């Protein structure tokens, strides 16, 4: 039944876990729509034929002298039941539809995050393992994946018909979308929001790989493209580091070069700006008396517009990095702060028990470097293994 209806309505294959339940609602809604429309048309045709005027009489039909009330029409009860039924039908559509919508929009907690950047007429992706790709999104089949998306110029819309999923990609904001591919396969990505002459060529592909060789493919990727020199902030990068750094380590490097450590410490010691130790997901008091959870969105926003939600007790001296840092760099710094979340905020106390999945023992940049001297690449010895990956 499902296959027949899917082929009849020309729906693409149901490649994500949500696609099948969405399609069931689709069949229910479309069938009732067809029945309703055909029914009304048939009834109209029947009445037209049944009550047509006698053939051939003059153009001016004789007056119908029957008294007013005997003129047909239906009882009030019949009318109320029809509209009550219709209203109930529409409300059921809404109840099922909206509950599915909420499930579509709430990513499961353990989903892997991938950063997506829409740019005029191409899609680029940055993976938590530091790799990056343009035009192809590698995802592990059978595991939920959360996409944090932003745009560099105009509104695009990330649309994967096979997953029945679409979300606008708005510049200046991060919107999110999650899915879980059922089994390995390749699926088309379209841009669904008018974004210029190349709108119809802004296509990409989701490649769902089995878990085993997903790691291998990811490792082989070139480092996330820090596309082009960042305007105004000449970041002296080595041509290409011997092997891809993890996103957190890259975040540490970008933060160092962007000069974040002039005001922010990573081991809890108080300084000009709030320390990054234990900052991730902590509720912090703001200047205007309210509180906010320092999650990805807050950290990204405060990099773009620091004065908007100022941490109480600190001066509004931080410059805005809007346009200075690209989205992968921002993602990298946020990931680095995420990893620092486990470092204890109060120096001297016993460090927290090592977290379960063995996060990377990061070198504190303030230790080995004299102020102002550019930091060398990460030490070879403690090569960071990708966080959260089970070899």
């Amino acid at each position, binding site marked *: 039944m499902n296959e027949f209806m899917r082929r009849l309505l020309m729906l693409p294959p149901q490649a994500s876990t949500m696609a099948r339940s969405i399609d069931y609602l689709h069949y229910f809604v479309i069938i009732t729509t067809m029945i309703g429309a055909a029914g009304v048309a048939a009834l109209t045709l029947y009445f037209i034929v049944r009550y047509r005027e006698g053939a051939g009489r003059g153009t001016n039909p004789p007056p119908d002298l029957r008294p007013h009330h005997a003129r047909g029409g239906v009882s009030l009860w019949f009318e109320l039941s029809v509209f009550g039924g219709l209203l109930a039908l529409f409300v059921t559509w809404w109840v099922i539809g909206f509950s599915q919508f909420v499930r579509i929009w709430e990513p499961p907690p353990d989903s892997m995050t991938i950063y997506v950047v829409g740019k005029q007429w191409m899609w680029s992706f940055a993976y938590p393992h530091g790799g990056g790709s343009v035009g192809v999104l590698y995802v592990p089949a059978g595991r939920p994946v959360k996409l944090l998306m932003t745009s560099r110029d105009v509104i695009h819309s990330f649309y994967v018909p096979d997953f029945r999923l679409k979300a606008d990609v708005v510049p200046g904001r991060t919107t999110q979308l999650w899915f879980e591919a059922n089994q390995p396969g390749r699926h088309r990505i379209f841009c669904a929001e008018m974004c210029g002459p190349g709108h119809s060529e802004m296509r990409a592909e989701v490649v769902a790989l089995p878990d085993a060789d997903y790691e291998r493919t990811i490792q082989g990727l070139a480092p996330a493209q820090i596309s082009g020199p960042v305007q105004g902030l000449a970041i002296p990068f080595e041509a290409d580091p011997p092997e891809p750094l993890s996103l957190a380590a890259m975040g540490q490097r970008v933060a160092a070069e962007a000069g974040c450590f002039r005001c922010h410490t990573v081991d809890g010691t108080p300084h000009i700006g709030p320390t990054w130790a234990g900052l991730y997901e902590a509720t912090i008091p*703001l200047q205007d008396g309210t509180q906010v959870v320092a999650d990805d969105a807050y950290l990204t926003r405060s990099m773009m517009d620091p004065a*908007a939600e*100022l941490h109480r007790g600190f001066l509004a001296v931080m410059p*805005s990095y809007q346009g200075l840092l690209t989205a992968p760099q921002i993602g990298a710094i946020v990931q680095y702060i995420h990893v620092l979340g486990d470092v204890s905020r109060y120096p001297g106390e016993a460090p927290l028990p090592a977290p379960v999945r063995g996060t990377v023992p990061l070198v504190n940049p303030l230790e080995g470097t004299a102020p102002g001297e550019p930091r060398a690449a990460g030490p070879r010895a403690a090569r960071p293994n990708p966080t959260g990956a089970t070899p």
Partner: protein
Amino acid sequence: MTDHGHQGPAPRVAIQFQDLAKQEHAAHFGMWLFLGSELLLFAGLFGLYTAYRTRYATAFAEAVHHNALWIGTTNVVILIVSSFTVAWAVHSLRRDRRRTTLWSLAITMLLGLLFLVFKGIEYGIHFRDGVFPGHYYAYQEMPGHGAQLFFTLYYFMTGLHALHMIGGLAAIGWVAARVARGKTTAAYPIPLELGALYWHLVDSIWIFLWPMFYLTTG
């Protein structure tokens, strides 16, 4: 209809109206529909103010400090008094006191001009500090998007209101000329009543703009 001697000729009833009452109701009703559409022209901007105030609450509260409170407050008093004088003009025209009507209208227009002068002074202060709308915003003491959006919205709303103020001045001026020439009289006060309605709308919009842009400091 009894003629009221020097009140001028009774008004002509147009062909499509059955009587004078319907014609006058049509005039007032049509004017109110026009005022409704003018108010909804501002609705878009009020919506934007709500949205950006929710998103940049602290920046908006802080940016209000830069607006000169004394100019805003004087302007609100000016407009309330001008609303009174224009209403008084309508009232005295109905009692057929042409001189008081003309004086009230003159004071109204003077107050309107005064409002625009103060508005000009305030814009001058902003321009001197580098507070410009949109991309041209270059105000050092309040960097950041919140303040930039606040002042862009400030220019859009007060600018649109100033345009409506100029329109109101033109309308009152035209009506004052008709009263002076005796074409708008006690028997046919419709044009002055409609001009007054438009003026009251412009005043009501400023009564809302004042707290939004001058008062709500945190």
